[in-house]
């Protein structure tokens, strides 16, 4: 019996993409694992040596690491949580019919397409203690008498950068949820109307359950992006004052820019495991369903 000939074409077509991704993702990840067990400091290239778990031990006894860990949790919970809330509201609004809706939908997406560096700059200028427009508005409204230096005092800095990440993330949530809203069948709402359901009942019993999938995927994606985001914080505060705005990825980035690659790799691996713990159960499910 002749064996069935294997068609090579599908593999050949995937090959170029796979080769590039192997070279820029998979090999680096393996390399990062090796680096995390070494004292890989490019400022002292002659002293690169195997360290065992020393980087990890150092990490767990590093108070700045634990502060960054705590900050990452706050950053993600408030950042993503409020992005979701306001994105959801925006999606419900955009789902109503009114003139110019297409235009407004497109315009409201611009923050999402804006470079992180620029977002950092724009908001830093808005928050400015001397000439900032936010202080001017608050003074005019009579809420404060004197300008606040939002980004340079520990009590306000973190809240201020969180507002900025919320601002950036609202549009993405809004378009994803809006797309979900548009495929919910109108018949369900009509049936609910006949039964005399109130607006809130319809929201909690029809709209939100139908959106379950979209909401989970979007939150998951945002958790990954927000916890990995470096540029906004780095450009607004650099992680200061006194580490109060430093998340894990910013800490890793700061360590990497001073070329302490071993230690930053250990922390980056830790971050990856944290994210994997959030994402893998979901991905597994999604995979089974396919």
């Amino acid at each position, binding site marked *: 019996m002749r064996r069935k000939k294997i068609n090579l074409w599908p593999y050949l077509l995937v090959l170029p993409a796979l080769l590039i991704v192997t070279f820029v993702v998979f090999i680096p990840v393996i390399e990062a694992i090796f680096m995390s067990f070494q004292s890989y400091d490019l400022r002292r290239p002659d002293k690169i040596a195997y360290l065992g778990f020393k980087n990890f031990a150092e990490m767990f006894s590093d108070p700045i690491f634990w502060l960054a860990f705590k900050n990452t949790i706050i950053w993600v919970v408030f950042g993503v949580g409020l992005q979701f809330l306001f994105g959801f509201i925006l999606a419900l609004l955009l789902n109503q019919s009114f003139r110019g809706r297409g235009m407004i939908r497109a315009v409201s997406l611009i923050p999402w397409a804006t470079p992180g560096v620029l977002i950092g700059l724009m908001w830093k200028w808005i928050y400015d203690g001397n000439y900032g427009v936010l202080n001017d508005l608050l003074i005019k409204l009579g809420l404060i008498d004197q300008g606040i230096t939002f980004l340079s005092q520990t009590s306000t800095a973190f809240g201020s950068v969180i507002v900025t990440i919320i601002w950036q993330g609202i549009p993405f949530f809004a378009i994803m949820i809006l797309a979900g809203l548009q495929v919910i069948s109108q018949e369900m709402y009509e049936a609910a109307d006949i039964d005399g359901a109130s607006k809130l009942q319809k929201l909690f019993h029809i709209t939100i359950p139908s959106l379950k999938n979209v909401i989970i995927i979007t939150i998951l994606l945002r958790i990954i992006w927000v916890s990995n985001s470096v540029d906004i914080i780095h450009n607004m505060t650099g992680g200061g004052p006194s580490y109060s705005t430093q998340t894990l990825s910013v800490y890793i980035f700061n360590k990497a820019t001073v070329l302490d690659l071993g230690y930053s790799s250990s922390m980056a691996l830790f971050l990856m495991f944290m994210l994997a713990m959030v994402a893998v159960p979901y*991905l597994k499910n999604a995979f089974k369903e396919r």
Partner: protein
Amino acid sequence: MRWKKIFSLYFPLGTILLFLLFPFYWTFVTSIKPEDELYGSTVTYWPKELTLASYQKLFGEFNFLLPMWNSFLVATITTFVTLFVSTLAAYSFTRYEFKGKGLLMGLFLTNNMFPNVLLLIPLFAIMRSFDLLYTPMSLVMAYATFTIPFSVWMLTGYLKDLPNALEEAAMIDGANRAIAFIKVILPVLTPSIVATGVYIFIQSWNEYTFAVLFTNEATRTIPVTLKNLIGQLGVQWDLLTAGGIITIIPVCIMFFFAQKKLIEGMTAGSVKG
């Protein structure tokens, strides 16, 4: 009825839009204010006097054209390379059944999970050993880490929606797969490819974390240059905001043309799945 609509739609929508768009307005206004008004005792919400001095300075003294060119170069190469390899992969995923397909698709999907900062560190070492550091090529490679997984995912979604019958008809007429793809699929797929390309271009144009480590004076891209302007000048907000406006104009133009198709592709997977 009219009043109801004001409270349930126009007022909340207006408030959110004001929050989302005000920073852009403020950036623009700042960039056209004369310096003495910018740092004056009262904050003005529309300049008493308009000036383009900051834009002139940006291009005259600070040669902003160089980083613009660098960004353009990196973003363009990244876009074409990514689109080429991703379209092939997506075609394979949607038109063939083969062993290991699920695994391969999973590999591309999970790629998004690796933190940039994790890849940044070993990539820096790798680029260094290949002598690619500080060349535009190093950024193209680095950006492939996030553009390829995203594009494969998007294009697979778009291609899945195109019925096989289209090419099969062409192939019965004697055309081989490649010709059927070019003659039948490509024309229909072009808007989707363009939308994906726009996304890749914008992401590469905007990227900062890799760019700050992988470029030097000569190859610096716009985001790095903007950041460096702060360092050099203390803070000159008129220049910075002018640079910001110039950065975002091309992004906005491309985005407006592609947004409809782009949104369709991004949301398709999650809505159906």
